């Protein structure tokens, strides 16, 4: 029977092309490359696909397995050789990727989304200003605990540009001072204005699901007898991790939870009043707009039409009612959740 194993192997390889999305339509081909694999990017992909349909282009959407420049660039370099006419990329390290991106921008239409590399010669940036979004989170914390208190910050990592922006935004808003340089250098203090930073630094989990949950649980155990605690989750899975561990310890309501991104569990928690609110970025539109402008450029469109300003972040709360001091649009959690479900459904 052994020869059949060899035959089976050969036929698997021969059958590989059946798994591909290759259509060979002869349409203009554009690519979107994210920074890692995440539900956030699945929403983005739905938008990108819809846009590819609307703008009549072929789309390659790739999510690198790891949040690492080496994995991302391996994909980008290979894609460039498949004859794409445009590339949208979520930059991982703006400063260090700039030389590579500059070279790529000279070969194809390049635009950045989600995270920018301003000096790379990219055509435009589609995404929010993470520092401003972080300040929005900080304002939410201040509204939840007007007297001050203890704040614990949870995040995937503290090394990326996005992470620096968000953390600095939160802490600067709490203190009313600009600490960006310190935070980029990894320096933290115990006291920021009326708030004490738990463990004197943000707590990281490398976006590993069990660590996300364990970190939140451990902090809750440490802080369960401390008054006025706010727990801030700055990556997609963090508010969910905080909420789930608070539920398991029956501490919901005793601590304030403030979130980032539109994880379904986060939105559900806001709707039930368990989470104060979340700052959202609109990944669906990142995908939609990226592909739209890549198609525009590939078809010889005018550069002047490209967007020039960062996309505005938005706030999601239980009621969606106007809040004093908030200038960005505010959505009602249940309606925002439905909007995402609908767009994911339409992307299928």
């Amino acid at each position, binding site marked *: 029977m*052994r*020869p059949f*194993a*060899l035959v*089976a*192997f*050969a036929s*698997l*390889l021969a059958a*590989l*092309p059946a*798994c*591909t*999305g*290759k259509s060979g339509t002869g349409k203009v081909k554009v690519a979107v490359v994210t920074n890692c694999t995440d539900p956030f990017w699945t929403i983005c992909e739905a938008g990108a696909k819809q846009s590819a349909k609307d703008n009549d282009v072929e789309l*390659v*959407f*790739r*999510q690198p*397995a*790891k*949040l*690492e*420049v*080496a994995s991302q*660039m*391996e*994909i980008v*370099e*290979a*894609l460039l*050789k*498949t*004859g794409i006419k445009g590339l949208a990329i979520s930059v*991982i*390290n703006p*400063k*260090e*990727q*700039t*030389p*590579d991106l*500059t*070279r790529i921008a000279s070969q194809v239409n390049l635009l950045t989304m989600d995270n920018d590399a301003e000096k790379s010669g990219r055509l435009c940036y589609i995404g929010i200003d993470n520092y401003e979004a972080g300040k929005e989170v900080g304002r939410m914390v201040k509204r939840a605990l007007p007297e001050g208190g203890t704040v614990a910050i949870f995040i995937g*990592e*503290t*090394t*990326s540009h996005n992470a*620096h922006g968000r953390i600095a935004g939160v802490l600067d808003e709490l203190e009313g001072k600009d600490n960006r340089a310190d935070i*980029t*250098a*990894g*320096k933290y203090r115990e006291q920021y204005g009326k708030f004490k930073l738990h463990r004197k630094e943000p707590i*990281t989990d*490398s976006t590993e699901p069990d660590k996300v949950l364990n970190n939140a649980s451990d902090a809750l155990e440490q802080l369960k007898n401390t008054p006025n605690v706010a727990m801030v989750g700055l990556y997609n899975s963090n508010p969910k991790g905080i909420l789930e561990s608070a539920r398991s310890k029956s501490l919901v309501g005793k601590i304030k939870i403030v979130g980032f991104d539109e994880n379904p569990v986060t939105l559900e928690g806001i709707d039930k009043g368990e989470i104060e609110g979340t700052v959202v970025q609109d990944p669906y539109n990142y995908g939609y707009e990226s592909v739209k402008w890549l198609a525009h450029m590939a078809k010889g469109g005018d550069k002047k039409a490209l967007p020039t300003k960062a996309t505005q972040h938005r706030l999601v709360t239980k009621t969606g009612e106007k809040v004093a001091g908030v200038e960005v649009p505010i959505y009602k959690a249940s309606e925002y959740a439905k909007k995402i479900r609908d767009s994911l459904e339409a992307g299928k």
Partner: protein
Amino acid sequence: MNGSVIFGGFFAGSAAVVLALWLALDLPLRLLPLGNRYQLWFASLAFSLALLAYTLELSRRNLVRLVGVVVLLAVLIGTLAASSETAFDRSNIFELLSRQGALGVITIGAALIILTGGIDLSIGSVVGLSAVAFGTLMESGVSPVASLGLVLALGVAVGLTNGLLVTQLRLQAFLVTLCGMFVFRGFAREINKKQTGLVLAKENHPEMAESIDGLRALLVGKTENGALEFPAMLVVMLLFASIVAVILHKSAHGRYWFAIGYNDRAARYAGIGVERQRIAVFVIGSTLAAFAGVLLLLNTGTADPTNAGGSLELYAITAAVLGGVSLKGGECTAIGLVLGALVQPVINNLMTFLEIRQSAEPWVIGLILLLGTIADELIRRDAFGSIRRYFLRRA
């Protein structure tokens, strides 16, 4: 049908071709500023291929171990060639060879440790730590060459620690290096809180820009804007492989390593200094991992303390096994390691060129590797005997 003659001839032939190319290019390149680098690469290529040919030790047993990976590679490369007309463009081939070189450097280290009956799970973290240390040193003004030296010394220290813990305290290599995996990752995050990189080093110390670019050009073949002009990492890998080939197949040390891996106790009774040899192998492995860290930073331009080099140990071990290394120890050929390291980068490249669905990618990669291993194992067990018999029976 003598395998040694065929393979030996192939490599001697390749060496001759490279040598001829080198000589032919010598004159025009003398007129170019890049000339010296090309000469060095071609000379190294010729040297290492010649050494590999010289040390080739292809008993029937070894040959059988290589058939599987050669078939797997041939099928993968064939599929890649058929997938798109641009897949075989020079730029893509260079990109592939470059990545294969990077993987090969750690594969050699991983394989030697497995050969002597150990395992090293800390490779990925050591690569990460070295990349971060290399960048951090340069950011603080240490010259690139001195940084390279310090990082290699770090690799020696790591290997020595692992080796001593395994041999003197008689701890399991699996556990020691698993702990190392966490420890060295932590060290990487301690020494730098942010992503390190060449641009930052050059900004901090503009006077070093030229030497950083020079080292990058020499070791990874990239220009300052990141364009790949030559797969220099492949040359680096082949150089290491050929040196290891001499040790493995032409020196007493190599004989000892095979003996230790095959039967530790028998080696001890035969009077081999098992502990010393083991420590030496751990040192070689970690030093190669440290060197790979330097290559990673030079190639990618940046390293993130949280994840640089993550899970590379698993790719290295897989490549070693595909290249004919037995996880039980005692089996390894230098040429097998070179071939084994070629597989994974081709698979990754293929995923892009075939536009494999995102969700299908992990299982497709896993299945290719699994079926490759199965085919390899079946061939290995009886060297086509059953296939021949099968067809003879039919006839």
